[in-house]
């Protein structure tokens, strides 16, 4: 099939009533869990269909079945009203199904064009790459779908949002009419999300069918026509986006009402727990990432740091935890200068840390839940005995206690952390960090990638810790989160704190402007 044929999709409402995908009675079990339990899932042609559910509800499994990555135990799949045996992604691609995974499958050192054509290279004289044709084809392609990207740019130089566009183009280039987007917004900034939504709408206008997997209510409501809600492997409801509300959806997902706002006890204190003065540091490329950051966090207070990602937040947290060297400035905890202390000394003084990347920094995935829960405390009483030995009995009891207290859904304390869902993994981290009785909690993107239930839980816990007198430094790219939790809000822009506001005395508009570098004080 030539490219030009692919470029001529049927007119928008040609198939208006026909069905693109129908999955009937799909059941899929893994050892110990029924991931999909007799699920019926219907997507009409030309619609944007949301697949909503908490982590572990079975969304990704269902879509992996549709994409041929898993075979269902039971059930039938129809594509374009014909029954198919989905035995591999190759079959799915042949049937016009494309999938954009949460983690991109691009070759970073190749250019955009090379990535798009990878595996389907147009050739000149059967051997040589037809470079000119590739470039012009892709240019046409980008124009048609209004997905702007420079075909000659190397992928590793591109921001995440653009890389995602490349993934979408790749799927389209392979002839996808039905596009599965797995949690596409989880890595994007608000601006990039807007761009993505524009592109999705353009695709819909071109007659493409889109399945949008997400656990974010707002986004699903904003972009989708119809929504199928999954809960614990079953369909909890199918609704039209125009006829529902966030509250109704959340209830369907979680099975109960969800709290979006938090009651905070009024408790004020002048006691400064963390003081940061003129902190400077370099990023990995040896460029200034922090350009003199100064702020304080007090007892009974959540200080939210808002800002678009990449403005120095990651470096700030690393410097505060002793994981990155500062080049100037001082950090005080309870009046003690901790600037030159090692991470373990800081932890011993009462700093807890919920890292932004739980797989990279938060957990050792191949360790058991118990081993993860004692991480950092393994060499202290009561988890050691006779100087060098781990006390497994004590550790085990301790882990069992935390599993109960923090409702960690795990088969046992010996299960590897790798096998837990994202939300449960975050609970393990929260349990470990909060049970230390810290003076200061540094929570970095604490609810990223978590479903509604888990997000609510983590936020509630943060507020609880604050109410008990903890100082909390909350770093989040999610303005709603900052807004819901913070007592004071600092805005970070290009390595500086450009403003610190009382939560009651500012507006989302003002914060948005500050985050974009629009106004400086």
């Amino acid at each position, binding site marked *: 099939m030539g490219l030009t044929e692919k470029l001529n999709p049927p007119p928008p409402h040609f198939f208006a009533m026909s069905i693109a995908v129908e999955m009937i009675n799909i059941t899929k079990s893994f050892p110990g869990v029924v991931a999909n339990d007799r699920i019926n899932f219907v997507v009409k042609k030309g619609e944007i269909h949301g697949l909503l559910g908490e982590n572990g509800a079975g969304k990704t499994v269902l879509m992996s079945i549709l994409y041929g990555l898993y075979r269902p135990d039971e059930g039938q799949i129809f594509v374009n009203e014909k029954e198919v045996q989905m035995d591999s992604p190759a079959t799915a691609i042949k049937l016009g199904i494309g999938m954009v995974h949460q983690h991109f499958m691009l070759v970073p050192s190749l250019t955009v064009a090379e990535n798009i054509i990878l595996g389907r290279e147009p050739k000149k004289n059967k051997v040589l790459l037809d470079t000119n044709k590739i470039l012009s084809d892709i240019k046409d392609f980008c124009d048609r779908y209004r997905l702007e990207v420079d075909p000659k740019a190397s992928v590793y130089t591109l921001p995440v949002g653009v890389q995602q566009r490349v993934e979408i183009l790749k799927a389209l280039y392979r002839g996808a009419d039905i596009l599965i987007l797995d949690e596409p917004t989880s890595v994007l900034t608000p601006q990039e999300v807007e761009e993505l939504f524009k592109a999705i709408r353009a695709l819909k206008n071109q007659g493409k069918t889109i399945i949008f997997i997400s656990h974010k209510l707002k986004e699903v409501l904003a972009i989708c026509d119809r929504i199928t809600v999954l809960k614990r492997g079953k369909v909890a409801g199918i609704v039209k986006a125009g006829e529902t509300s966030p509250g109704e959806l959340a209830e369907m997902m979680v099975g109960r009402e969800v709290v979006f706002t938090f009651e905070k006890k009024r408790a004020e204190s002048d006691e400064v727990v963390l003081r940061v003065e003129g902190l400077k540091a370099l990023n990995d490329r040896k460029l200034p990432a922090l350009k003199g950051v100064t702020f304080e966090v007090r007892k009974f207070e959540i200080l939210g740091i808002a800002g678009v990602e990449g403005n120095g937040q990651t470096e700030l947290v690393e410097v505060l*935890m002793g*994981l990155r060297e500062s080049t100037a400035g001082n950090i005080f905890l309870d009046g003690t200068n901790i600037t030159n202390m*090692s*991470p*373990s*000394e*800081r*932890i*011993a003084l009462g700093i807890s*840390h919920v*890292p932004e990347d739980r797989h*990279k*920094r*938060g*957990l*050792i*995935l*191949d*360790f058991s839940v118990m*081993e993860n829960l004692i*991480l*950092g405390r*393994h*060499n202290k009483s009561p*988890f*050691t005995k006779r100087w*060098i*030995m*781990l006390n*497994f009995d004590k550790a085990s009891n301790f882990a069992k206690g935390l599993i109960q207290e923090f409702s960690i859904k795990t088969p046992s304390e010996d299960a590897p952390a790798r096998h837990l869902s994202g939300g449960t993994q975050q609970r393990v981290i929260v349990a470990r960090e909060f049970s230390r009785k810290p003076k200061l909690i540094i929570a970095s993107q604490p609810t990223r990638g978590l479903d509604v239930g888990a997000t609510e839980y983590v936020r509630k816990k943060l507020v609880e810790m604050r109410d008990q007198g903890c100082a909390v430094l909350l770093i989040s790219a999610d303005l709603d989160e900052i807004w819901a939790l913070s007592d004071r809000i600092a805005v970070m822009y290009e390595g500086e704190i450009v403003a610190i506001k009382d939560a009651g005395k500012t507006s989302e508009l003002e914060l948005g402007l500050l985050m974009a570098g629009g106004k400086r004080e």
Partner: protein
Amino acid sequence: MNEEKQRSNPKAGQLLREILARLGSSLRGIMPEIIAIIVAFLVGGIALLATGHSPIDAYGAMIMGAFGDVFGIGQTLTQATPIIFTALSFLFASKCGLFNIGAEGQLLVGGFAAALIGISFNNLPIFIHLPLALLAGALAGGLWGFIPAVLKAKLGAHEVITTMMLSYVAFYVTGYMVNYPFKAPGWVAQTVIIAPSAQLPRILQPTQLSASIFVAVILVGLTYYTLEKTTLGYEVRAVGLNPTAAESSGISVKKGMILALVISGALAGLGGAGEVLGVHRRFIEGFSPGYGWDGLAVALIGRLHPVGVLFAAILFGALRSGGMVMTRATGVPLDIIFMLQALVVLLIAAPRMIRYLLKRGGFKW
């Protein structure tokens, strides 16, 4: 009385069933290894046929040679002993995410240091002299692990390069030592015999099997115990599995790496000391036919588990000792044994090594 018997019987039956089930599942678990060994022997058989030998005669002689009598078993264990040490050495470093391929050099310096202590004192009691010599071996091997560890921690030099290069340094430095300053009279590059008080006793005369095998078996247990039950082992594994998370939790990654490489080197050094003090009774240039490299293969065949290592080392030992008998009895060249070893490694260890490297996020040179 009768009642009690009835009650205990089903219990015993249950226990038996459980033991059988355990055995069955662990047998199933090592199926890939068993199949690889069978396939290696089949391919080796074809090679034997092609060169005009009878595989049945050759393999028969080999198996009888390796396990057929006490002498054979003794020789098999003698050959397995140094490989247990070097395999444990590779294993320990690998648990910390380090690829120590310098066991050969660590074994040589360990052996030489032990020999040096062995020939330097004449009137020490055995319970001081022998431990001292072993300790010297461990320390020298540990030092040979410490150098690349510090280079890695301070400068980021990759341990694959530094440990391998240090192996050459060890080879030539010990070679120089026994060719010049410490050369015994005669034309062989070797030291004089060590004092009897530094010799590890032979435990199965007339084979060369020495008490070094006890040290090896104890270290198998100790390695397992250290890795699984101590805080040090916990930290080493944490650093190996996820250095970033370990660092964030206050574990010093550099300290963990240095300790792991020093212990790794000490294990190989002890192996060298065992050879010198138990088997050769002196340091002979080139006494190791590549125990360090065999250790790497054996560690991988043993699935990086101390007990697995023990059995894999015995397999390699059997191939070596049985192979020599086979050569003598049937005239089949010893090279066929190296081919068998290589095939086993290729079939078991190579795919696993590739997976291991991939899991570590690629081989960065």
